[in-house]
């Protein structure tokens, strides 16, 4: 039987030379909180470190949007998913992912308006339009809840793909306000930031959480240790400093459970919309 299997394998190599043999990779899925290139660039130090530590190829992937990311994550495409708290809670509850750690820096969502905009209070947004990243992104969901809490449920939210685009569109006047994360706001260039101001910010929420696919449960400690050892490297410190993430920290008890409200929104959104796969 082994001989037959080997023969089939070799025959397959000859019949499909274009495919070749590819070693199974460890897929590090990062939620598309920014552009794909930025995500790839940000996570290259971690990828390299994990490859060395786990001794397997590691790929950093993302998704066109949060919905797709969530769907793929739930489908088990990612071995280690780095995503917002509410999606992490969804993955934990609906897909059996194991929460590992998160960043020290507080994750907050902010509502940005143009610095010279006449909007100084939430009610000033009445009759205006706003921008969000995607319907199921945490900042967008917070924004929508913030609008609803301020009696502005009717204010429409238009979705764009990148957080920096939100700031640019707000500056350009395409929308009265835009929702993004504090971290992304802080990463904006000084010129852009000089043209915008924060209208409102959320309370601290679970930001990006590292969720391990349950099929790697047996190596959870190893992978967790690898992540913590990465935090001690110079590359990690530079990464944390550059992205103002301050380092890793363990999840607080019930920190993910607090995201159930938003997770439900995502679940509802995913089940209501047709998958892209």
């Amino acid at each position, binding site marked *: 039987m082994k001989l037959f299997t080997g023969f089939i394998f070799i025959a397959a190599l000859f*019949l*499909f*030379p*274009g*495919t*070749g*043999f*590819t070693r199974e*990779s460890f897929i590090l899925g990062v939620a*598309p909180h920014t*552009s*794909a*290139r930025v*995500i*790839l*660039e940000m996570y*290259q130090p971690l*990828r*390299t470190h994990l490859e060395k530590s786990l001794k397997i*190829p590691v*790929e*950093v*992937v*993302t*998704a*066109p949007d949060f919905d*797709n990311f969530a769907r*793929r994550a739930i489908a088990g*495409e990612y071995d280690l998913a780095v995503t917002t708290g509410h999606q992490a809670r969804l993955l934990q509850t609906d897909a059996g992912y194991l929460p590992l750690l998160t960043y020290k820096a507080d994750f907050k969502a902010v509502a940005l308006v143009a610095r010279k905009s006449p909007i100084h209070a939430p009610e000033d947004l009445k009759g205006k339009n706003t921008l969000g990243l995607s319907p199921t992104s945490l900042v967008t969901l917070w924004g929508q809840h913030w609008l609803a809490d301020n009696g502005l449920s009717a204010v429409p939210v238009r979705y764009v793909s990148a957080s920096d685009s939100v700031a640019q569109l707000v500056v350009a006047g395409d929308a009265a306000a835009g929702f993004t994360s504090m971290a992304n706001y802080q990463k904006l260039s000084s010129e852009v930031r000089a043209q915008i101001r924060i209208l409102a910010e959320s309370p601290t929420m679970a930001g990006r959480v590292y969720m391990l696919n349950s099929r790697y449960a047996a190596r959870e400690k190893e992978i967790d240790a690898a992540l913590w050892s990465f935090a001690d490297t110079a590359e990690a410190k530079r990464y944390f400093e550059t992205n103002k993430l301050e380092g890793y920290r363990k999840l607080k008890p019930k920190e993910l459970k607090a995201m159930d409200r938003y997770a439900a929104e995502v679940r509802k959104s995913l089940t209501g919309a047709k998958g*892209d796969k």
Partner: protein
Amino acid sequence: MKRISLRRTILGRLLFIAVAVEFTMLTILVANSLRLLHGAMTTQARRQAEQMYPILKAALTAPMAQRDYATVQAVINESRSAGGVDYITIVDTAGHRVASNGWPKEIPLPEQSVSFPLFVSGAQARYDVVMPVSYLDQPLGSLHFGLNLSQIITARRSLLFQEASIAAVELVLSTVILFFLGYWITRHLATLTKASIQVASGEFPPPLVPEGDDDVGRLGLAFNTMSRTISDRVRDLHEQAELLKQEVEERRKAQEMLLYQQFQLEKLNRELEQRVADEVRKNRDKDQALLQSEKMASVGQLAAGVAHEINNPMGFISSNLRTLADYFNQIVRFDRIVWENIRQELSAETREVVSLNRESLEIDYVLDDGVTLIKESLGGANRVTKIVLDLKNFSRVDTPEYESVALNSCMESALTICYNELKYVATIRKEYEPTPEVHCHPGQMNQVFLNLLVNAGQSIVPMVDPGEIVLRCWHDGIFVYASVSDTGSGIPDEIRNRIFEPFFTTKDVGKGTGLGLSLSYDIIKRHNGEFLVESTLGKGTTFTIKLPLQAKQSDVDRSSQGVEEKS
């Protein structure tokens, strides 16, 4: 003038070289153009691939990272719609084709092309590119696309056709132009060649070739000048050659004359040498003959002297003996008468005494024997007289040189001389026929027969063979023959031709000089005779002399003189 083929003419070779050079250069030009075209197109295709790659990579990086394969498919669809690309396929890191356009799913993707197949046609005119899609150090997948090279190949074909056409037209035009150019340059060469051939064959002066100010015209001018000079020079050479020819002829005649004179001189020299040799031989023969003659003369004179001295006593001895014989006969007759008359008268006693004395004294025997003794003595005296006479005859000191004699008498004289030697080795048999006398030199004839008899005696081995020597003499009305035959050892064939050579002998040292037969031969020749030899080895030899009967003194003298002159 024989027409030469084009390839052997300057025009032909010029054309061939020019066309060959131009063909080579055009070939190099076209090949170089194709090479440059190939290089340029290769560079262009590679650059196109290199330009496509970063664009596609930039466009594909984000969707690949996002695994947004719909976007990836849209990107490659858009990219291929621009043309120039046969297919685009994206393979992820797991080896799955995540997006493809233009390449069937069931066919494996081609490998990276190693070269640009610009010189092939059809579906193979494609450059396959396999490039990784990565960002930073992270592989995202691979990009497979095939550049369509058909336009490049079409352009290459068009360029090749155009360049080949231009080259062919240029080659034809160059050939035509060079042909007329070469013909214009060499148009006078035929005339020049014809004139040169006439010059070479000696036809002077040759026809004038065209002259002018251009190169060919100057060549014609130079040729005309040269041909005139050569013509003058040839004329001078002809004259000098004629003089030289005459001189050579004269020298040849002189040389022939010299050769003839040399030949004559050599001939004379040879004749002189021959004459000297003959003279030497003749003188030697004459010396020998003279020596022999002197010897014979001495012997003859001695014999004549002895004969003369013996003849006188022998005269009165013979005379006295004859007288004594007469006297003794008278005494015998007287004794018989006395004895017959007195015997009766005597007493018996006396008669007895007388008879006894007579018997004891053997008077009767004495008387009888006395007659016999006297008779024998007289016979001996006569024999001595004959010997002396023969000696005188042999020497012939008292006879003229030539006279008519019978050859048998000469043989007898010779036999008398040597009989004492011959009688111990052979018996002598004589078979003389009556023959006319022959006019000859008797002394020389004696010498001839003496030599023959001595040789015959010496050829017979004594006490071994009962030798015999036969002397014959006969004639046939024209010649007189005399022969001496022996039963000796004979003459071997190998020396038969040499026995008449002077000083040739087979006898022991001291027994012969080798001159006997040589002198005898000369003597017979001087008598216009012949000397014949018949010999059988082991049985004997016969020497025959043949002398003419009609020979006159003058002939013999002339012959003798001739021989002497020759010798």
